[in-house]
């Protein structure tokens, strides 16, 4: 990872925060833009979950990560605390690696 990458990301991320909190403030941002921006996490995080679980590089893979994800989904659905979700999901993947 390059420092250019780190600093450019810092500038963009902070710039977007400033844009809303200080620059635009209570003036108008179109509702349609707000709705779209707020939907990005759902779309992108779902994409990242799918990529990180079911692909390795450009090929498909079903392995211990899928079991970890299944446990995490179950724990999240049961509204267990975040710490439990992480430990259960990661722990499941680790245990399968050890015993299978």
């Amino acid at each position, binding site marked *: 990872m390059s420092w250019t990458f780190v600093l450019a990301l810092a500038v963009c991320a902070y710039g977007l925060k400033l844009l809303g909190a200080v620059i635009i403030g209570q003036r108008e941002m179109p509702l349609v833009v707000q709705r779209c921006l707020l939907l990005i996490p759902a779309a992108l995080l779902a994409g990242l979950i*799918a990529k990180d679980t079911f692909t390795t590089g450009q090929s498909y893979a079903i392995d211990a990560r899928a079991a970890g994800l299944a446990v995490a989904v179950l724990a999240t659905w049961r509204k267990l605390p975040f710490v439990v979700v992480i430990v259960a999901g990661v722990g499941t993947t680790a245990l399968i690696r050890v015993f299978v």
Partner: protein
Amino acid sequence: MHHFRAPDARRFITASLMIGIAFVIFGASFGVLSVSAGASVAQSCTLSLLVFTGASQMSAVSVLASGGTIASAFGGAVLLSGRNAVYGLAMSPVLKEGSMASRLLGAQWVIDETTAIVSAETDPATRRTAFWISGAILYASWNIGTLLGALVGSSINPSDFGLDAAFPVMFTAMIAPHLRTSAGRKAALFGAIAAVALAPFMPIGLPILVSALGMLFGISPTISEPTATTDGAP
């Protein structure tokens, strides 16, 4: 710079520390994976200090770790941080009271969790107390976690501990509040399908940017107004 009322302050300290514990663990996982994806300890810590929006940082590292291009890692991370601009609109009255310096600092602390904690309050003074206390505690937690993880990360192989599953597991915890609306569920379904279906045909990292097009479900008006949606993960 602000006068906090003790009962309120104590309530927000407790609430923030609860989330802070999760932040330390999320931060540590980020630190481990960031270092194993090729970032130095200093770079990992700088990301947490200056970017301070967990999903973006994790997204960038996740794409780089799987061999994606720098451009796609960057694009995904910036898109993910776009929501903070919307949260900032809601937080601007809270920041407006202070000096320009405090507004510039406060802007950095506008994230899902501070927005959610502040949005639960109505009294302006209480909202300011909530913002500054939760912001300080969560900022500290996230950065302490990152430092610990990055230091450990340089001496372990993450997949031995199942930590290669940490990203999808953490993203699962983070996405849950975004699935409460039907538009959110549609966007997520689109995003997941795009990422998997396009993986063999596109350079690594690019399908994730296609996933982001799921945001276009926001064009059709829904009943619910935009609000901050999470209460626990960065």
